[in-house]
């Protein structure tokens, strides 16, 4: 079986494969002995089955950026919640959610 990550990288970097229809792409993948999970993922248009194949249990947190509040450096403050009224005249860290 060909390595799934390598196949994903190859699809992602090939102009003819990146936008190929699911049927055509799966036709190509069949010949390379791609995993059944990768072919299911292609047919579904999402990576759910790959998470099973790769043993990924948890969907990771999408890193978020801190909410920027003007007037104060986020790192100058403690981590506790800011009163609502302070969230604007300060870059209060409690409101930070950027990665």
């Amino acid at each position, binding site marked *: 079986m060909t390595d799934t*990550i*390598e196949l*994903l*990288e*190859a*699809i*992602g*970097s090939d102009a003819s*494969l*990146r936008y190929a229809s699911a049927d055509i*792409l799966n036709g190509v993948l069949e010949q390379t002995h791609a995993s059944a999970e*990768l072919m299911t*993922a*292609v047919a579904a*248009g*999402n*990576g759910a089955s*790959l*998470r099973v194949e*790769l043993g*990924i249990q*948890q*969907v*990771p*947190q*999408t*890193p*978020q*950026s*801190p*909410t*920027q*509040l*003007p007037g104060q450096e*986020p*790192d100058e403050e403690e*981590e506790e*919640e800011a009163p*609502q009224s302070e*969230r*604007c005249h300060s870059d209060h*860290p*409690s*409101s*930070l*959610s*950027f*990665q």
Partner: protein
Amino acid sequence: MTNTILPSLNVPGRGRLACVGLGMTLGSHLTPLARSHIVQADVVFAALSDAIAEEWLKRMHPDVRSLQPYYAEGKPRIKTYREWVALMMAELRTGKRVCGVFYGHPGIFAWSPHKVIEQAHAEGYEAHMEPGISAEDSLYADLGFDPGRYGCQHFEASQLLYCERRIDPAGYLVLWQVGVIGNRSVGRFDAGLAYRALLVERLGQDYPLEHEVIIYRGATLPIERPRIQRITLRELAEVPLTAEETVVLPPAVTLQPNRAMLERLQTLDAREKEGAAA
């Protein structure tokens, strides 16, 4: 592609930091320079939104350390992000070449890459940020609009609630992190919908509630298509949103001529003509 005609330089013993972007789509967006920073690093830290992308990154370097485990239920995100900065700085201070890999562009709606570079510079280390293809870049391509045509404002959604901001409805409005508005730590009681209702109310000051709103999710795997959902501003209050979606409001009003400025320009042009004729 790796450079094969020149030897790479390696100054040993002096820590060096790079924060690079992996781009949005696995296999499609990583720049040659970002890849080189990854490959040449002694240690790689990863803050990616997709565990499959993390697997891909592990193929490029034997010591990839995920920053994901530093999130915890009830823990303020900013605390997690400060820990990330501290981890990268600690390795840098031991003289290692450290590479922080972030999804998209490492400097767009991202706090820790800017922070760690600032801190590294303050302590005298060489530190760079390498741009990556961000959700912003993908959305111009997938939604087919040019930010230069009518102008385009970008806001972190909750800033519109906390702060007085002027929205220009003649241009595009791009709102980031709408899906996590009102939610400052992982697993915390989610005030999301209540906050979202207020966000819609705030936007209602500048747009009719029937105005089109686009919910956009760019492809992170090369077997995916972008997801583009069109709803009304009113519906934004209730629609399910993930942390991976960006909200776009197209222009609601036409560009208005600036009559006073146009008159002044005419006067200027006329004077120039007179001068040329004299």
